[in-house]
């Protein structure tokens, strides 16, 4: 594999799409667990390959400035995507134990988190800090939904309206989704770091307000040759091939 930013970016995008697929499979009751495990295996392979690629890229190309930031961020995003794969497995395991419990928030959470993951990957592809910022802001919505699941679980549990084990599994699913939301947020923060060099982590004040935008040097200011090319056609083919197996 060519040791370049383009290969690194392509691999991260492929891995991200597998992570999206993993979440879909986790919620698809008709899908077998083995299908999900296969996707997770592929995510894990990418985890190793991408870390190795980052290491070689940094050692051999001595990147600086935005390229260095990109490589550092890829190491982190790589880890975050791998953990999203793990969370999908956890969701599937818990969901297999849920039969009757009705928690409408879980569906909303699933949709919100799915959108966050898609948008953080899009923001990574296009270096779109505005989109990354919107993902970060959305994290609060997912956190609130998780709290609401726990609240509902406690209320229904007290009224003995649901089986505790099932309810507990639902809270676990909510926790997994909340974690995926956090990981998508981390990825978005890394995108902002790649583009602007600003580290906005652990700064709730900045996250709450529109200050992020002020801190950013937006993508439009970067020369077009610096937007690394991503061969989407190639990635789509890859995804089709791997998920059709």
């Amino acid at each position, binding site marked *: 594999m060519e040791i370049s930013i383009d290969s690194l970016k392509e691999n991260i995008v492929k891995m991200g799409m597998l992570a999206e697929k993993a979440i879909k499979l986790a919620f698809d009751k008709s899908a077998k667990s083995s299908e999900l495990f296969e996707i997770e295996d592929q995510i894990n392979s990418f985890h190793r390959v991408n870390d190795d690629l980052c290491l070689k890229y940094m050692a051999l190309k*001595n*990147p*600086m*400035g*935005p390229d*260095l*930031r990109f490589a550092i961020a890829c190491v982190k995003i790589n880890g975050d995507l791998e953990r999203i794969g793990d969370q999908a497995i956890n969701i599937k395991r818990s969901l297999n134990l849920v039969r009757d419990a009705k928690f409408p928030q879980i569906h909303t959470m699933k949709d919100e988190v799915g959108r966050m993951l898609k948008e953080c990957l899009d923001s990574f592809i296009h270096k779109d800090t505005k989109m990354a910022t919107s993902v970060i802001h959305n994290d609060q919505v997912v956190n609130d939904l998780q709290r609401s699941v726990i609240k509902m679980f406690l209320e229904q549990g007290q009224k003995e309206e649901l089986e505790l084990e099932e309810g507990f599994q639902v809270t676990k699913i909510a926790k997994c989704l909340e974690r995926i939301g956090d990981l998508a947020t981390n990825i978005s923060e890394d995108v902002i770091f790649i583009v602007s*060099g600003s580290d906005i982590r652990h700064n709730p004040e900045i996250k709450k307000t529109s200050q992020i935008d002020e801190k950013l040097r937006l993508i439009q200011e970067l020369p077009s*040759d*610096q937007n690394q090319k991503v061969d989407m056609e190639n990635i789509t083919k890859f995804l089709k091939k791997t998920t059709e197996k």
Partner: protein
Amino acid sequence: MEEAKTILSTKNLECYFGDFHAVKGISIEYKEKSINAIIGPSGCGKSTYLRSLNRIHEEIPGAYNKGEVNLLGKNIYEKDVDPVLIRRNIGMVFQKPNPFPSLSIFDNVVIGLKLQGVKNKALLQEKAEISLRKAALWDEVKDKLNKPGTSLSGGQQQRLCIARTIAVDPPVILMDEPTSALDPIATASIEELMLELKKEFCVIIVTHNMQQAARVADNTAFFVLGELIEQGASEQIFTNPKQKKTEDYITGRFG
């Protein structure tokens, strides 16, 4: 923390070779006990600028300067200033090690002091040892001080030249690509030495090796076509440069 004192500064420094305007209005301040790198593509004027800091540039026929170079507040281009005295205060190490071939290791180190009229042998010996120790060369040459300077390896010769430069205690040391003729091991030892020298001196280094600038320099200035594009802390220049040209250069997209 107390702010470091500015030891050398240039103000609108212009350098010419006849009609050719090689360096255009550069203003930079250099603090004491710091390493300052100047980077830029070939022909950007960085060596010319460096050579103007101790009035070596003007030795080339047709070459001249405008603007100011202030050493501890005094403009070295004022008419009453003796360039020889300036070069004693602003030492220089060149790209290729250039020990005097006819002189011994010892005499290479103390030649500057001898030219200043120092005759006291004990003092010369003391200065030679101190300078060679500071240049991290003493242990390797202490038993062969009378051998010719040129009998040493390239890396040792460069350290000998550094010892010669620091023997006269200049507050500022200029280095013009001091490791470009050396292998990675000798380069590492010179870089280590620079970090030691920084404890006492202000070092200004021109280098083509960006990693070297990133490794050793506190501050980095980036030149293109005789103009200063950006200057700042090396950690900022190499991780998050503000100017697009700098970004392009350090990422290898330009230059």
